[in-house]
């Protein structure tokens, strides 16, 4: 177990800069999720932490040790890959024990460690098989077994669940959470799935184009996204963005938009400087409720999902998605008014996209 510190890490392939000045501090036992769309550099960052790729600059420190010039094999980390990367020619037992074998651990000790890990993951009955004879979920467990048996300073997960079907993914997600709670090892976890990020991480770093957009607790990321990109990336359905002009009447803030005016009383932000200027309001669909006052528009699309009903409202030419209860099933073309909880609204600067 160890802390992880990344300072000013850069990476470029020729003239292409894929990581720009990354800074991250993770406490001992923390669970860091690197979240972002594909190509944002999150996997490259993970490879640099693992030592699989050299960085073009900056420092990576695991525990107290600067590992810039330490080979992957000597960093005392473990990694779970998207494709599991199980050695096809070896049995499950040898796969799990391979890292210990490499470190010349005597066989009896090694067998005990493998058994313990297999026990923990309930894959004891699979130990003599070859990876080719396993199902996707079983391979996933073996890959995790291979990681935990080493009792490393740091766990690295590279999109470990993306090859599983929806049901297994949820199951394994819970399993990983449980493992983390139980082992308490520091974890870095790469994913593009925001649910995984929200459910697993103690810290989330949202990345885009090689830059960390926001590095914070998941709750903060959700409630106070640092910019339009983060707001849009986190949450499903995605955050509504309502363009308008910020107005202050008698000290009360409101947003004038194409379809009327939205009262922003109770807004959490200090927005003084933006009064009278165009802003973008980020409104999460789940904060909208059917009400007498708020924003009004006509219903364009209704999508029942079972527990919820998604309603897309045309508000003066701008589309607003609301997640309503299953019983709220408005008709197409019907006029509708939704209340907005101003405490959950985030205002963004339309020029920079940053949160005001």
């Amino acid at each position, binding site marked *: 177990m160890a802390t992880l510190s990344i300072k000013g890490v850069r990476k470029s392939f020729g003239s292409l800069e894929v990581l720009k000045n990354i800074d991250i501090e993770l406490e001992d036992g923390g669970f860091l999720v690197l979240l972002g769309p594909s190509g944002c550099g999150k996997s490259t960052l993970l490879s640099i932490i693992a030592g699989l790729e050299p960085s073009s600059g900056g420092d990576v420190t695991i525990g107290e040790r600067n590992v810039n010039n330490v080979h992957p*094999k*000597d960093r*005392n980390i473990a990694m779970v890959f998207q494709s599991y990367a199980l050695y096809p020619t070896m049995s499950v037992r040898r796969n799990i024990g391979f890292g210990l074998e490499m*470190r010349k651990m005597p066989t009896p*000790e090694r067998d005990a*460690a493998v058994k313990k890990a297999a026990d923990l993951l309930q894959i004891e009955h699979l130990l003599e098989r070859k990876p080719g004879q396993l199902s996707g979920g079983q391979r996933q467990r073996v890959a995790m077994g291979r990681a935990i048996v080493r009792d490393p300073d740091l766990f690295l997960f590279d999109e470990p669940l993306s090859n599983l079907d929806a049901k297994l993914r949820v199951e394994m997600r819970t399993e990983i959470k449980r493992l983390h709670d139980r082992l308490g090892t520091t974890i870095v976890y790469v994913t593009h799935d925001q649910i995984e990020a929200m459910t697993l991480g103690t810290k989330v770093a949202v990345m885009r184009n090689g830059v960390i957009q926001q590095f914070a607790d998941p709750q903060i990321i959700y409630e106070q996204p640092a910019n339009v990109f983060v707001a849009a990336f986190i949450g499903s359905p995605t955050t509504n963005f309502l363009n308008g002009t910020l107005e202050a009447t008698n000290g009360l803030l409101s947003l004038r938009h194409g379809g009327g005016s939205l009262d922003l009383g109770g807004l959490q932000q200090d927005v003084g400087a933006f009064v009278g200027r165009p802003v973008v309001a980020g409104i999460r669909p789940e904060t909208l409720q059917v009400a007498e006052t708020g924003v009004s528009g006509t219903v364009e699309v209704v999508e029942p999902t079972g527990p919820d009903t998604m309603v897309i409202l045309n508000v003066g030419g701008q589309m607003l998605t609301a997640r309503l209860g299953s019983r709220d099933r408005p008709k197409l073309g019907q006029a509708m008014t939704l209340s907005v909880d101003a405490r959950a609204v985030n205002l963004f600067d339309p020029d920079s996209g940053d949160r005001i």
Partner: protein
Amino acid sequence: MSRALYTAAPPRTVWESINPLRMIGELSETRYWMYLLLLPSALLITAVVLYPTLYGFQMSFREMRLNRPDVGTDWVFFKHYIRMVNDPIFWLSLRNTAIWVTSSIALEFLIGLTAALALNRNLPGTKLLAVLILLPYFLPNVVAGHMWGLMLDPRLGVINDLLMRVGLLDGYKAWFADPKTAMAAAIIVESWHSFPFFTLLIMAGLKGIPADLYKAADIDGAGPLAQLRLITLPMLKTIIAAAVILRVIGLVNSPDLLLILTSGGPGRSTQVLSLYAFQMAYKDFNFGYAGALSVVMFVLLMGFAWIYVRLSKVNED
């Protein structure tokens, strides 16, 4: 678990720090590792290909006649090249090379394509038939040459006998004594030997064509021939282009089979450039002129490859 013990240990003894295995292991972690891996083969290729080739180039500008030590080994600049321009045998060999290469490739391609299309239907028994059909490619040139030499022998050859039995020939035919049939027979033997190369590559290409395309064509009502013309051949274009260029290189460069079958005869009717250069070197011992002939071959090949690659790219757009 006593983890501290099993994290990678630094070298503890002098032996460990000089242990060659360990040193290679350490070396493999450096950032120049990929180049180190390439080094042995690159050195080898430089030594056995690049250096001799450069040497060959300089040889073509010198007098080098092994059986005439009296003429020395001076620089003669373009003497050999000028001689070549006025050498009717060179031009004849060039023409023969063109015929030899184009006819062989055309024949090999046609048979190769047909075989690949047939094999690609994956009918029962195809696996065994594929082994038999691909086999000639792996036989030695020398043996292939002699096998056919025996079969095509005018007096003792089985082919004449068979053709006479079915009435295609009315007397024995000396295939290698008539300039027309000599070249044709050599081309047939060469094609027999090398068509499986096309079959191999085209089969691989066919596997890469999505089956959906054919299903769509079926629904659109395109027959097998239309499918061949509209789907198969266009999709195979790159692979065919690659196969053709590899074969051109092979055919231009290697005189083996002609050396065994005809030695360029009768009357130089099957004389090709590579054979001419070979004979110039090892029958007339004029290494300088042989070198110049080889250089011209090389330049022609490079020129061909360049134009060919460009043309096949232009067509793609």
